[in-house]
């Protein structure tokens, strides 16, 4: 029993660091470890993943709020979309064929991976436009953060707010129906569509995914899918990992984070396309 606990804590520590840096929920690490290595039923693995998402989110958000890396207004505004999407997803289960969702969102992530690769090659993180976006200005979404790897304040503008909102709506729908992609779509919407720099995108994604997960977490909590002996040591490991990760992320060059992010997002995207093709 102690052995299982220690493994869970170690897995959690790793998932917490990675999740906090990339703005992902960590389900991509936790679900395979629990099902393939520990032989746990998928139902309990999903329950543990939900707790993992919340632990990553809350653990990393403490530092991201204190150091002013994330964009609170963007998060709040987009949370309207993800929560509505989440409800729609829950209601549409059984009506909509998940196959098409897998294909659509798999393709979106692959596109996003390609787009990130282009950004990486261009080597420019922040694009300063002459004219500010009208909607972004109205909603006071434009932001600024201090980059600890470049030792300078970075001001950025937010663009294509409707497109970002739409992707978030889809992201909420997909994660509500398919139980995946809690963070990948959020980073995509902000980085690829709204042209935010990667660090605030990742930090803001971390903040948002906790809220999206909290709604479904209570369901899993009361139906017994969350096993305390698995989820508690995992969550404790993640909290420590996320606190570390949220500090590491800030001193890493954005370019390095992007280099780690691209294969991960391509992997998730291709996995979803595969599921869509073989029929979910």
């Amino acid at each position, binding site marked *: *029993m*102690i052995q299982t*606990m220690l493994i869970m804590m170690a897995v959690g520590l790793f998932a917490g660091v990675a999740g906090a840096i990339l703005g992902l929920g960590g389900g991509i690490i936790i679900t395979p470890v629990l099902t393939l290595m520990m032989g746990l039923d998928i139902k309990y693995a999903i329950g543990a993943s939900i*707790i993992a998402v*919340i*632990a990553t*989110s*809350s*653990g990393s*958000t*403490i530092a991201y*709020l*204190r150091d*002013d890396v*994330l964009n*609170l*207004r963007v998060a*709040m*505004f987009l*949370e*309207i979309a993800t*929560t*509505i999407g*989440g*409800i729609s997803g*829950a*209601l549409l289960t059984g009506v909509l064929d998940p196959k098409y969702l897998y294909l659509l969102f798999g393709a979106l992530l692959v596109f996003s991976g390609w787009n990130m690769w282009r950004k990486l090659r261009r080597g420019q993180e922040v694009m300063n436009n002459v004219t500010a976006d009208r909607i972004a200005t109205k*909603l*006071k979404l*434009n*932001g*600024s953060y201090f980059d600890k790897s470049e030792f300078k304040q970075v001001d950025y503008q937010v663009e294509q707010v409707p497109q970002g909102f739409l992707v978030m709506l889809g992201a909420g729908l997909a994660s509500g129906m398919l139980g995946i992609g809690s963070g990948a779509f959020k980073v995509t919407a902000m980085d690829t569509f709204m042209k935010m720099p990667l660090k605030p995108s990742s930090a803001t994604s971390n*903040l948002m995914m*906790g*809220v999206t*997960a*909290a*709604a*479904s*977490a*209570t*369901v899993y*909590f*009361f*139906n*017994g899918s*969350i*096993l*305390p*002996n698995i*989820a*508690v*040591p995992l*969550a*404790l490991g993640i*909290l420590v990992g996320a606190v570390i990760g949220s500090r590491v992320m800030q001193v890493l060059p954005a370019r390095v984070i992007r280099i780690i992010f691209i294969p991960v997002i391509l992997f998730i995207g291709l996995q979803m396309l595969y599921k869509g093709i073989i029929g979910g």
Partner: protein
Amino acid sequence: MDEQSHQNQTTANEMVHIERIIGRILQVGVVVAAVIMLFGLILLLIHGGNGGYPVGHQPTTISSIIAGTVALKPYAVMMVGMFCLIMTPVLRVVVSIYAFYKEHDTLYVWITSIVLVILCISFVIGHTV
């Protein structure tokens, strides 16, 4: 341009203030959840077995979790800790409404309140569907 940058400046300062408030309260929530979970885990290590419940069972109703916590059953205490953790993002949304209100940002008081309402609706739907 000057006026524009001045406006950006005040918005930025206000934001830093709001973020500090929310960050501090979130930190308290996370620490409380972590301490309860850790306490439950230590109880489990001391008592061994299946956390005070038959194998394959755990408390899942509010009343059984409360009863188990009073009796210091490890699994019940761990469930309380996890419940606190699940509530931290909700706490964050509630505190945000207050923080935006304090800074007289009416637009975002509305936006954040809408998020909270949708969140409550999804709790209800989640438990009925």
